[in-house]
């Protein structure tokens, strides 16, 4: 059987790329196996756990439910693009560390990406909005208290310019 790869042009973490992707690959598989970006985790693969959350045109999405072919023209951010430079953590990541919001770490990339998307849309989120925005991200370690605290801390400590790059 012949499959036809699909040409896609997109921006990943601020860098323009052109690739050919198999028509049946999800964005999750493309990131991990096609590009070697394994920071985005593969959990349930049915859109329930949020471990694969990435930002697609400024919105949090489950990479397991998006076809890689659908990212043509899109602007994608993954956890690999969040840190300020090679070593320096982004204030959102720093807040997660300081609030003990990271235990086993498997949900953390998704949690951080959901937080980036939330703060892009709302710089002073209420507790209810924080909970709603993270409701699609499961954590089996922390009980969420520390994570919500981390998001609040990130919201209060972050400067607008530290979110600016995610808009492009």
């Amino acid at each position: 059987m012949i499959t036809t790869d699909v040409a896609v042009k997109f921006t990943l973490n601020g860098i323009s790329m052109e690739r050919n992707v198999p028509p049946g690959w999800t964005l999750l598989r493309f990131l991990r196996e096609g590009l070697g970006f394994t920071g985005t985790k593969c959990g349930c693969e049915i859109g329930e756990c949020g471990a694969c959350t990435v930002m697609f045109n400024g919105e949090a999405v489950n990479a397991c439910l998006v076809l890689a072919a659908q990212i043509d023209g899109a602007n994608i951010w993954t956890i690999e693009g969040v840190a300020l430079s090679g070593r320096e953590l982004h204030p959102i990541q720093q807040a997660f560390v300081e609030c003990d919001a990271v235990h086993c770490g498997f949900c953390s990339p998704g949690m951080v990406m959901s937080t980036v998307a939330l703060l892009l849309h709302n710089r002073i989120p209420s507790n209810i909005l924080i909970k709603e925005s993270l409701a699609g991200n499961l954590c089996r370690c922390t009980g969420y208290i520390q994570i919500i605290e981390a998001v609040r801390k990130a919201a209060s400590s972050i400067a607008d310019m530290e979110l600016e790059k995610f808009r492009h």
Partner: protein
Amino acid sequence: MISVLEYLRPEKLDEALRILAGGEHTPVAGGTDLVLQLRDGRPRKVLDLGRLKLDFIRDNGDVIEIGSTMTHTALASDPLIIKSLPALSKASSLVGSLQIRNRGTVGGNIVNASPCADTLPALLLYDAEVVLKSASGTRTVSLSQFVLGPYRTALGPGEILYSIICRKAEAHTGWSYIKLGRRQAVNISRMTLAATIFMNGDGKIGSARLSAGSVFPAPSRIPRVERMLAGQTPSRELYREAACVAADMMIKESGHRWSTPYKKPVLISLLTRALTEAQGKSISGTVS
């Protein structure tokens, strides 16, 4: 493993309809249901609706036309939907998780035709009709006739769901939308109820609408209860009486099960709550 052989993303509607007329391709929009089905090996060829500009909302006076690829996130936050189709806005805001609402579309929710589809009970309140397009033309079907049963619709070969037309509620109509599940988030509905109540100037119920999801093979209006309420003076007793009739219909439909002794009082109190809340939001105020 997903074994898709072909992915197409036409730029123009007529091109898309021409391809779909060949009968080999399945439309995909947000993919939140379809990508799961792809894992089971079907369909093998997909056509992305994403470039066809079907993400529109048009205010056409008495009715609102919603393009089929409007996402749940967009519907939940759109001012016109919030004002004129509030139960739909609420339903959209309760679908899955934010990640799913950001991709999932109202058209996908309809065409997937799950008995627990969250937007359907709300759309039914507004007499929704679906506009279907194919290479051979356009037809309009009422939503209640379009959804035939669990995961079955009247979508013909080569057809796409183009848009949904909803009738705006009359001014001062009260509404409610209740979703019951086992948890608060990423929640598969166990029961959804949607209701509107319009009060006449004389303090009597002018018209009532009630629909339910997850408890029937397809989400449905409950005309028998709507007729029971019209023209009556509202009271808790009346709503409870109506709720008992609706609950009996639901139990009859699902069959008497071991869980029925628990379910019946729950159904009655949720139905009573839906009707009471709807009236509470209408202009007339409180329930005596």
